[in-house]
């Protein structure tokens, strides 16, 4: 694995100004992400981790600091780095095929069709090509969104609590699906979540954020091989470590 960072964040600060009030949301963020890594940004809701992801994605401009990808500063949204929202990001007026093919307008028709078919298969939605999102379950809608993101062959994927709207059983399924796809496509993934288990199950490294104004409390390297055994001692150690870091009790 190359040592030069794919994504490099230095001294990031974000202050929101609204109606005379200033809210500091992010403070002094320094982070490197290597190519092909799956990094989780973990923190409680509202702490600013989505803001961080939006800045990295080019949708927000930071108050201070720099974000560079492959050495270039991030100037705005870019199809090389696709953002995946929660299921509501899927376009309801397009079919599954229409959604997945959304970013492929510039390709010749035959190649486009092939790509769409490939990604329909990859995310396990064969047979639903002509269905509309309102006919699909939450998990299926999320697969559509991931397929749409992958179809344009981006370098990086940013996922903002993508499984948040799903029930916990579906979430488990989707996590292993994500890992399967990641293994097949080898993208660099930045994944925001508030779920400690999720972060330990998925990530190579977990960036634990503090509450607002968010700083990086700790970076935990998850040295477990895939597939991860969720009852292994090492998994529980790592997980409990993060629990303690955040200051949560072990009994309720």
């Amino acid at each position, binding site marked *: 694995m190359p040592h030069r960072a794919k994504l490099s964040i230095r001294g990031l600060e974000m202050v929101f100004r609204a109606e005379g009030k200033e809210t500091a949301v992010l403070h002094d963020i320094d982070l490197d992400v290597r190519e092909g890594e799956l990094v989780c940004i973990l923190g409680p809701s509202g702490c600013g981790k989505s803001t961080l992801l939006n800045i990295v*994605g080019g949708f927000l401009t930071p108050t201070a600091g720099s974000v560079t990808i492959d050495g270039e500063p991030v100037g705005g949204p870019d199809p090389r780095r696709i953002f995946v929202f929660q299921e509501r990001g899927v376009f309801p007026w397009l079919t599954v095929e229409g959604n997945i093919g959304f970013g492929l307008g510039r390709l010749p028709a035959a190649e486009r069709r092939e790509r769409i078919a490939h990604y329909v298969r990859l995310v396990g939605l064969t047979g639903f090509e002509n269905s*509309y999102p309102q006919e699909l379950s939450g998990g299926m809608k999320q697969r559509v969104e991931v397929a749409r993101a992958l179809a344009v062959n981006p370098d990086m994927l940013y996922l903002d609590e993508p499984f948040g709207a799903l029930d916990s059983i579906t979430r488990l399924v989707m996590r292993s699906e994500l890992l399967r796809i990641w293994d097949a496509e080898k993208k660099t993934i930045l994944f925001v979540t508030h779920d400690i288990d999720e972060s330990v199950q998925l990530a190579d490294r977990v960036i634990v954020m503090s509450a607002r104004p968010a700083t990086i409390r700790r970076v935990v390297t998850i040295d477990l091989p895939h597939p991860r055994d969720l009852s292994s001692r090492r998994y529980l150690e790592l997980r409990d470590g993060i629990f303690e870091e955040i200051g949560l009790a072990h009994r309720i």
Partner: protein
Amino acid sequence: MKTRAFDRILWPALSTALVLIVWHFAVRWTKTSVFPSPLEVARGFVELARRGVLLRYAADSLFRVGSGYGLALALGIPTGLLLGWSPAGARAVNPVIQLLRPISPLAWIPVSIVLFGISNFATIFLIFLASFFPIVVATMNGVRGIPAMYLRAGRNFDLSPVARLWRVMLPAALPQVLTGLRIALGIAWLVVVAAEMIAVDSGLGYLVIDSRNAGKRYDLVVAAMISIGLIGVALNFSMRRVERLRSVRWGFRSA
């Protein structure tokens, strides 16, 4: 509890029968000589059909609606899109809309006569005015209600502003726009009839007024009113069919 198709027909049929019966006997018992009974109205229908008047006047009214409404569509949707896109523009224009809206289109009749004389154009202008505002407002609100997420996705996939307008904004706003279009069509139909009662000499509205003035033919008056109702229902029904298309159905709460 799904409604059986049978129920959907039975109950309105019963209430319609009830209305007709009450009507018939009310006319009988009050021994009125002027107000028509259901049978007389039915005969009036036949008479109008035979004279070819019904079809001709209906076509006149529909033509006026089509022109005025079509114009309102062509101008209103782009205007609404623009206003929805630019919040500053919307804020400036909104008070103007709020001020002009409560003015009944018919109050514009004298102005329209000055501008166009007594002619088809005057009525078409009125219909245009009446339809324009609801279409603009519905389009504007449709655009403003689009979740930011869709527009962000559009930028993420490197769409040009024009492509974003066409491939994201318009489809996302379409359900709300269609509702506005349906309501505007209903308004247009109401206004054409009213305008024809005042400003021209053909059309279903004119038929209503003329049947009374030219001989107190209330049977024809009611026949004309029923025709107006039926065509209005047909127009509304067609618009609702459009709302059921799969690419817009997502935007409508299921009944």
